[in-house]
């Protein structure tokens, strides 16, 4: 029995969260310290796993497996590969910095951290799941604490609306995907006699042709054939889009900016930084990897949805007056690049998409952290009302500018090494369909728009005249803990930009296995 490091990463947050609930509510500082300790353990262990993963060997490592519900072929099965590992690390980084940022939170911090940690367990659990049922199990755990976190601690004006909208959107998406997953499970079971939720086994059976059958639906009245299509082609859109709702894919992205804006700072960081990756990751793991034939059929069509995400998201971001909505829509735009990377169906594109998931997660967490710092002090997020903050909060201003560079894809920052491969992938994908070239050109315009809205925010919020009379409390500089969080996030962005080799080979090894499934060598 090896050391179950993944289980410890997954369950530390929820266990600590439960223990926090047993603390007396008024001992707030002990609660914060305990929360930070738990987050530090998660970050430390994720770093350990990240650096001790054997890239040369590839495949799934740190695997833990035992039976959970044998009657249904459900197992407790965990492991990481080159795709999930960066995301585990990302979650560790965001939970750690999120706790730092929320130090000043004074309204029931005990419940806040408890719910945040339940969410963290759900997210970690989804990333390391190798069992389909287990993946759903953790996925749902990640969805519901969001409701409480936004509804209780969120922005007064929209929190109830946003929380309910978000929860229902995500829940509907996930149950639609669940029905698809059950269909896979029973179809594979009937074809081969092996009823299993183990994704590795399912993938193996899929490769040996267990899902090669047609689904025929006849009209109940005339008996005419309505649908007669291969299984994978029928079910792929349900599974993929069901999960992609959480990745904010157009036209199901609507919950996301509202949710980002209504959420308290740490939750926005978690939400945009990690939770949206959860959707993209599950869409990849369950949709594309278990139904590769469906992916080949549908992705060239879905690429049009993603281009809407990228371009439309960027334009909407440009006209927002609310500082936080700008970031919210920029997330929609950047997550579109991830799905677009998936749609290239080639190696370079997938590497870019995976790197983008990590890079965007860190970047957007940084953005939301800075927005939170500004809002906490100015009590407004209306861009025209702000100005000159660089004088009062130089750290926050520098951090935002670094985030902006990442967002624009400047060389030397992680955004560049993530976005460049996606565009290369799009260019290569012209072998699949010539219109990919047009897509590449269209989405390249989004980069210009991104530069516009980032610079506009930088100019209006951080530079310009600072007007003392606007803010009665006066504006203080950020705290030491805030600075720590900012430094951690910025250094990750720069390190990855300067030394892509820290992540590139790892991701590349993970992408190889997907390419094998897609039949692209």
């Amino acid at each position: 029995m090896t050391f179950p490091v993944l289980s410890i990463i997954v369950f530390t947050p929820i266990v600590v969260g439960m223990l926090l609930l047993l603390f007396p509510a008024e001992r707030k500082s002990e609660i914060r310290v305990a929360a930070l300790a738990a987050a530090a353990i998660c970050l430390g262990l994720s770093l350990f796993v990240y650096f001790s993963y054997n890239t040369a060997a590839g495949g799934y490592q740190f695997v833990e497996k035992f039976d959970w519900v044998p009657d249904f072929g459900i197992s407790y099965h965990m492991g990481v590969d080159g795709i999930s590992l960066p995301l585990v690390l990302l979650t560790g980084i965001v939970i750690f910095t999120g706790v730092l940022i929320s130090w000043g939170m004074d309204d029931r911090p005990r419940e806040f951290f408890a719910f945040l940690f339940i969410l963290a367990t759900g997210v970690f659990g989804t990333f390391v799941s190798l069992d389909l049922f287990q993946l759903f199990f953790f996925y749902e755990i990640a969805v519901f604490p969001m409701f409480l976190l936004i509804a209780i601690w969120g922005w007064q004006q929209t929190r109830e609306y946003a929380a309910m909208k978000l929860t229902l959107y995500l829940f509907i998406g996930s149950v639609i995907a669940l029905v698809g997953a059950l269909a896979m499970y029973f179809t594979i079971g009937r074809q081969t006699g092996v009823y299993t939720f183990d994704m590795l086994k399912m993938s193996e059976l899929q490769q040996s042709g267990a899902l090669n059958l047609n689904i025929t639906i006849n009209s109940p009245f005339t008996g005419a054939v309505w649908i007669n299509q291969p299984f994978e082609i029928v079910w792929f859109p349900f599974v993929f889009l069901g999960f992609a709702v959480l990745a904010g894919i157009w036209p199901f992205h609507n919950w996301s900016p509202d949710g980002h804006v209504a959420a308290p700072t740490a939750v926005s960081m978690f939400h945009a930084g990690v939770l949206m990756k959860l959707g993209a990751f599950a869409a990849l793991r369950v949709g594309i990897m278990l139904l590769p034939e469906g992916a080949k059929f549908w992705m060239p069509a879905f690429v049009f949805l993603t281009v809407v995400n990228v371009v439309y998201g960027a334009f909407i971001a440009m006209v927002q007056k609310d500082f936080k909505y700008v970031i919210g829509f920029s997330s929609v735009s950047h997550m579109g690049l991830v799905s677009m990377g998936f749609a290239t169906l080639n190696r370079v594109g997938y590497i870019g998409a995976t790197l983008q998931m990590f890079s965007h997660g860190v970047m957007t967490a940084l953005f939301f952290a800075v927005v939170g710092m500004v809002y906490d002090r100015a009590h407004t997020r209306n861009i025209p009302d702000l100005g000159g903050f660089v004088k009062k909060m130089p750290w926050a201003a520098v951090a935002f500018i670094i985030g902006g560079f990442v967002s624009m894809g400047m060389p030397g920052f992680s955004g560049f090494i993530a976005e460049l491969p996606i565009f290369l992938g799009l260019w290569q994908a012209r072998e699949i369909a010539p219109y990919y070239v047009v897509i590449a050109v269209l989405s390249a315009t989004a980069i210009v728009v991104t530069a516009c809205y980032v610079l506009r925010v930088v100019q209006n919020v951080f530079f310009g005249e600072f007007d003392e009379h606007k803010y009665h409390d006066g504006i203080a500089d950020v705290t030491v803990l805030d600075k720590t969080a900012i430094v951690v996030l910025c250094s990750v962005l720069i390190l990855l930009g300067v030394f892509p080799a820290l992540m590139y080979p790892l991701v590349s090894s993970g992408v190889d296995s997907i390419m094998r499934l897609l039949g692209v060598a």
Partner: protein
Amino acid sequence: MTITPFEAAHLLALLPEILLVVLAGLVMGLDLVWPESRRRSLGLVAAIGLFLIAGVTLIFGRPGETQLIFGGMIRDDFAAFIFRIVFLFAGAITCLLSLDVEGVGRKGEYYTILIASVLGMNLMGAAADLIMLYLAIETTSITLYLLAGYLREDDRSAESGLKYFLFGALTSTVMLYGLSLLYGFTGQTGYYAIAEKLASGAVPSLPIIIALILIAVGFGFKVAAVPFHFWTPDVYEGAPTPITAFISVASKTAGFAVLMRFFLAIFPPAVTPSWNAMIMAMAAVTMTLGNALAIPQKNIKRLLAYSSIAHAGYVLVGFVAFSQRGAAAAIFYLITYVLTNLAAFTVVIVFAKAAGSEQIYDYAGLSRRSPGLALALLVAFLSLGGMPPLAGFFAKFYVFAAAVQSDLIWLAVVGVLNAIVGLYYYLVVLKVVYVYRSENDDKPIAVPRPYSFVLGLMVVGILVLGTASAPWFTWAMSAAKNLF
């Protein structure tokens, strides 16, 4: 399976029921002997007694070989055993919940009637003969009518008792008519004898279908399935809350126990395939209507009443899959429902005692007044809504998986969509509890000892069933095997 002639050993199979009679006598006797000041302990005696009987049943009452005893009246098998444990457990918890409730907590005869009701349910779970079936159902029903209307001074309780009685009596006569038709056409009263007769094809099918529908009316009333659900909200709202809890969990489970045993024994799907369509429609409508009507509710007991209708629909989905796995899923669902709903009602009782209200908007600020109570409600409601890592998630998963396995994909889809609607109104209540504030925020609510014990037990139970659910499902599976 043959009917074994009477042996003294068969009394062992009825041991829990015999002990229940003894316990009822004991409580009644103590009620006479004890002075007013000590009568709060009556509930404790009843609760501990029921827990002990459950323990005795677990240890000595494990059925060996499945057999029909007492001239075929009773079937001694694993399914009956599991249902017994559930009823005894629910009864014991109900006694604990009644302790501090005004007007019922100190009444010996209240607990006596409750114990008699548990006795009736135990027999419902084991009945294998039309006569036994009817006797058991009436034992349960009549005692429940009394309990629902127990607060004579309270108009709503009196209304509740009367309404329950009128609806119950009507559906019961209809069912009795169906039973008599069945007997008239087959000449048998034992389930298995009837099944043999029907399988031989000597009986015309039309009267059997009619009998079937009439009997379904009675069962539908017990489980509160649409269209026999009209009594539910009023009865739930008016009855003393512990009794509401008891009706919603134990009586519903008992209803499903007889429904599954009766229909799976007498009418296997092969005999009457059209039967499927009817129950399927019933399941879909029950889920949808229950959930839809729960949304506008302002009173938490009425909300739980409509939600209990919806949950009857989910259980029906498991049943209508007509497979061992489906039946097992239904049984597992009922077990989780017992735990979850009892937890929810415990919160309702404690809150009503402290704040004097059952209106949902009065729950505002509960999370500040009593974080523990709010957390228990959160766990219970999210479990009802089917969120992991709570019991309700596995329950729903098993039920829908059974439906998909039996090629009822559309029913699974209807169920899944209903789960979303359900989640919506549970979240609305949780929003009131956690987000809204009230002027009473600074008045903490104390949870009395027995209630905090019950809440702790239920929450742990919900978490255990929601994570390590495999052994429990295996349990339900072995019970389901007995039903076929």
